[in-house]
């Protein structure tokens, strides 16, 4: 798996043209055949998704041979299908698609592939492997596992007997939230623990604050809290601070710059990275695919079919390494 | 019907009413405002269920559980508060609930034909079956309601104040239709506050007072007016207009309207009213009188001409400007244009006196409202009661009270006695005169030419959106006015 083929600069406003990211520069960046890429993702209604968008557009700007078409972000599968249909009508060369729901977008993606368009599937996987040329997956289940494993580590390190473990999930109706929770629960099971309290927020700062405020009342004493999303984490943290509660280890998710800074300042135990650069990577890969180039770090001349991103845990011991990668949300 | 009782929260609307109606007769129902006439009608129509009493139909006891049941029996009603659906066409309104249809699909040409036939019978072939009811004038709406009642081919037709907004000509047409119906054996219950109508059309009279039958089956033609009025009100009332001011007013006019026009409605209307003067607008239904005074008031934006109060020209189309300079309007349709039905009487009375920002003084508000309610004899005299639950005539008094409280200098009255009983009517007449004495300028619009002539000092005759004639009221007779109007219409 390739971890973070991201750019050096994490702020999209300061793109480094032609730079091949932290990984070795390669002749692949040299301008080639003109490529039109359509990009469609969910409504950028929270920080991580906004970062996805920002990284994607910034990445596209780096290449003089890439024209990016961005469809309106939407949470309605039907609407997103019509965006893809528009791209097909438009005869774009490639489509980078972060579906609102992988299964729901599968058939239209298959149609695009059949129309000869290179489809790159990002983050939420299609239900058919014929729908996309390449799939870049953030690992939601793995993210839960990472968080759970780290929690188990904490239990062992601190020698907690009968610890109270809480989980603040994101939008509960989304399959990705279910995957994260499942991963978390499975990892905890391995060290004999369970989730004692679970609340769900809406991926927004405000809902995070409200959910956390209620959670704190529900549990007078907490040992470990895993919050799925660092963007809502800003609100969660505000609730903790307002209640002056810090007796527990606070683990985050996604890996925003805010979270990293808190870790550095000792206000947070850890966060699990869920890279918001996936779509940007998708655009790079789409360009390579259309220009029929391979990935320079691989001996393979073809771009792989499936790339699963790692979900590393950031703690105070390695935060300095990851801080530059934290996204501002 | 025997011993009908109907209770409302806080009121005994009907308290043992007896009523017997024979086929082919016109049975008149008389009573003061709030006597319970409309409530009784609603019981017959199946709208209200009586709390006690017995209803027999052709000798059989029946229960009228809902309006459908009444319709099935052959009862059709024309309710007092015109209940038309604004968004529907005239034809659809008339046939609502018993549409001409096949398999649920409306048969439009048939409906239109039936509608035209009904309207022609009522003398109004010019009302288009396809016109939206919302765009009709009050009188036209009344006609449509009447057509609606007729469309049922009922054997008992109940008319609750059908003539309230109609002029003489219309009333005459209505009577022709009623006579046709009675000749065919249809029974009619007829409610009106105009006693002369009762004499003309009625066969027998039942008088209600405070929810009880005080007299039933009186002969309509021979019972003396005095007796009827005494039975209704418990006292004798002279049904007469108060004397006019004799002295010539030589003050400058308060209200001065010059060349006022509203495109497509009326043109070049000039009128001036001096303090203490009562000016009447006479004319037939649809002649544009309501629109003229609404435009004077700023409720409609004039397309030409000026309105000046005390020599200062008002901003056209601004009601607040008009009110600020002392104008007040009692509009034609009290329910939709004047009252907040769900609010208490007191709030409705003080509504026009809220223009200053600040805190409310409840005690003062209730006291002021209470005083006016007492002065105008609004019944019941409870100022906290929702206006909705007041009878029609009492609602009208509430609107009047609003402008009395404001002490406006020019009062515009559009059909001020619509639905008001004999007693209250003479009270309102006296009130208007009294106001004039105190220097208020009054403009009165009424479809009863007699009322305009009796009440006003000076009369303007309006037809087709033009002022045809202006003369002191004393110099005109009903006949003259009709003559002028008809000649004007012909021209």
């Amino acid at each position, binding site marked *: 798996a390739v971890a973070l083929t991201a750019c050096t600069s994490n702020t999209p406003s300061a793109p480094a043209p032609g730079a091949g990211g932290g990984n070795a520069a390669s002749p692949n960046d040299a301008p080639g055949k003109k490529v039109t890429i359509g990009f469609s993702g969910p409504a950028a209604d929270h920080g991580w998704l906004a970062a996805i968008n920002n990284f994607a557009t910034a990445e596209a700007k780096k290449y003089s041979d890439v024209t990016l078409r961005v469809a*309106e972000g939407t949470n309605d599968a*039907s609407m997103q299908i019509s965006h893809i249909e528009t791209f097909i009508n438009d005869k774009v060369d490639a489509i980078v698609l972060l579906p*609102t729901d992988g299964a729901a977008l599968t058939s239209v993606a298959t149609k695009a592939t059949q129309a000869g368009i290179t489809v790159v599937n990002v983050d939420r996987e299609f239900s058919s492997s014929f729908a996309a040329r390449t799939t870049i997956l953030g690992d939601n289940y793995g993210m839960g596992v990472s968080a759970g494993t780290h929690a188990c580590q904490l239990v062992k390190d601190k020698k907690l007997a009968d610890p109270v473990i809480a989980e603040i999930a994101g939008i509960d109706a989304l399959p990705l939230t*279910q995957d994260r929770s499942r991963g978390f629960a499975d990892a905890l099971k391995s060290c004999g623990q369970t989730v004692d309290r679970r609340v769900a927020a809406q991926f927004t700062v405000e809902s995070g604050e409200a959910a956390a405020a209620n959670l704190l009342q529900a549990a007078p004493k907490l040992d470990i809290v895993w919050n799925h999303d660092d963007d809502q984490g800003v609100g969660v943290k505000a609730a903790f601070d307002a209640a002056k509660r810090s007796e527990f280890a606070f683990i985050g998710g996604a890996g925003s710059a805010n979270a990293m800074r808190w870790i550095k300042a000792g206000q947070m135990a850890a966060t699990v990275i869920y890279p918001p650069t996936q779509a940007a990577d998708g655009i790079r890969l789409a360009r390579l695919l259309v220009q029929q180039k391979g990935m320079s770090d691989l001996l393979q001349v073809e771009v792989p079919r499936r790339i699963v991103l790692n979900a590393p845990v950031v703690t105070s011991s390695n935060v300095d390494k990851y801080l530059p990668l934290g996204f501002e949300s | 019907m025997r011993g009908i009782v109907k209770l409302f929260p806080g009121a005994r609307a009907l308290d043992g009413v007896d009523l017997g109606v024979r086929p082919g007769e016109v049975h008149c129902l008389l009573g003061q405002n709030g006597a319970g006439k409309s409530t009784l009608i609603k019981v017959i129509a199946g709208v209200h269920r009586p709390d006690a009493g017995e209803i027999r139909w052709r000798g059989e006891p029946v229960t009228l559980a809902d309006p459908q049941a009444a319709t099935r029996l052959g009862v059709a009603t024309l309710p007092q508060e015109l209940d038309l659906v604004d968004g529907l066409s005239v034809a659809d309104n008339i046939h609502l609930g018993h549409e001409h249809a096949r398999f649920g699909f409306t048969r439009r040409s048939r409906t239109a034909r039936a509608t035209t036939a009904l309207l022609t019978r009522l003398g109004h072939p010019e009302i288009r079956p396809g016109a939206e009811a919302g765009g009709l004038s009050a009188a036209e709406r009344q006609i449509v309601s009447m057509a609606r009642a007729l469309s049922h081919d009922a054997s008992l037709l109940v008319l609750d104040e059908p003539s309230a907004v109609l002029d003489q000509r219309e009333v005459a047409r209505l009577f022709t239709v009623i006579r046709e119906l009675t000749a065919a054996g249809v029974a009619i219950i007829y409610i009106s506050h105009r006693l002369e109508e009762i004499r003309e059309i009625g066969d027998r009279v039942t008088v209600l007072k405070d929810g009880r039958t005080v007299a039933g089956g009186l002969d309509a033609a021979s019972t003396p007016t005095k007796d009827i009025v005494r039975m209704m009100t418990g006292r004798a009332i002279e049904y007469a207009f108060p004397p006019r001011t004799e002295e010539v007013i030589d003050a400058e006019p308060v209200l001065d309207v010059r060349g006022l026009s509203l*495109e497509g409605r009326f043109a070049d209307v000039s009128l001036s009213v001096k303090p203490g003067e009562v000016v009447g607008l006479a004319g037939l239904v649809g002649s544009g009188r309501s629109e003229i005074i609404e435009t004077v008031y700023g409720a409609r934006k004039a397309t030409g001409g000026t309105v000046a109060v005390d020599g200062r020209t008002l901003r056209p189309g601004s009601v607040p400007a008009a009110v600020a300079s002392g104008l007040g309007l009692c509009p034609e349709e009290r329910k939709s244009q004047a009252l907040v039905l769900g609010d208490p009487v007191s709030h409705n009375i003080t509504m026009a006196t809220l223009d200053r920002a600040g805190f409310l003084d409840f005690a003062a508000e209730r006291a002021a409202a209470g005083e006016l309610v007492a002065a105008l004899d609004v019944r019941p005299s409870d100022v906290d009661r929702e206006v909705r639950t007041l009878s029609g005539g009492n609602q009208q008094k509430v609107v009047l009270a609003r402008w009395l409280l404001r002490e406006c200098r020019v009062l515009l009255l559009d059909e001020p006695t619509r639905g008001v009983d004999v007693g209250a009517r003479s009270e309102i007449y006296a009130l208007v005169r009294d106001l004039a004495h105190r220097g208020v300028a009054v403009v009165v619009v009424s479809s009863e030419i007699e009322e305009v002539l009796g009440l006003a000092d000076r009369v303007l005759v309006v037809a087709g959106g033009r002022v045809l004639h202006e003369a002191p009221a004393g110099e005109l007779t009903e006949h003259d006015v009709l003559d002028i109007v008809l000649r004007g219409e012909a021209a």
Partner: protein
Amino acid sequence: MKGNRTLGLVIALGLLCVVGAATAGDRFASVDNLLTVLRLASVIGVVSVGMTFVITGGGIDLSVGAIVALSSVWATTLATQSMAEDVHWIVMVGCALLVGAGCGLVNGLLVAYGKIAPFIVTLAMLAGARGLAEIIANRRTQIVRDQGFIEFFGGSVLGVPVLVLVFALVAAGGWVLLNRTTFGRRTLAIGGNPEAARLAGLKVARHTTLLYVLLGLACGIAAVMLMARTTTGTSTHGGLYELDAIAAVVIGGTLLSGGRGTVVGTVLGVLIFTTLTNVFTLNNLDTSTQAVAKGVIIVVAVLLQQRLANRAGESHAR
């Protein structure tokens, strides 16, 4: 007035098309793109036609999106799908319609006989139905396995996608029902003046209930269409449909207070919103700018349309 109102919408749509063609050229003015717009409009369009009836009848329904979600989920459960496998995919369709109509019935009964404000009833249904959908689906996306179903609804008849055809049928049926039947007349009457309607002997409560059932049925149809389009049933389907549908209905000229409704206006309203999104996408506007532009365009369009209606109204009066 009514004709002018519709004319205003047609002009707005026309202008939008002109802008689309001018800025995106052939990419906009192609048959394929037209069909894309129509397909997108179909699902929300069916819901909006149903919503026209409820709003015309003096009600409102916030639960349409949730009902769509619940119907789609229920129709794609393992049980339903395996039954459909044994019998025919029509079972899934029937299930979706039944669930939709059932939810509508609950709404209708509570509004008409429980006498609770429609806003509250359907708000409760919004929460309840979506919650139930999540529970049934266990928050997973359920995939439609029946290829016959997908092929049927994903297919075309004489070049017209079946989805668009369904929308056209629903719209035509809705128009006839509202304008040419006693049911429609009564709906207008009940919305415009419920008291008068009662006096006229209409069965107001029963009729009101029927209106909600009708809308529920429309939601069921929309769920089927969505299942075909996305090949899935999930509790996240139909998100914010309530706003979209009400917006289309109101922009179309139906009075939110009831008593006046136009199916043609609703259809135009839906098309305007869908075309707007399409033109935006073709012109590569970013989402935030789109939102701002959308807001401004709505206001300007309605203002213009009102001017137009007034002017026409005046000249009519002369």
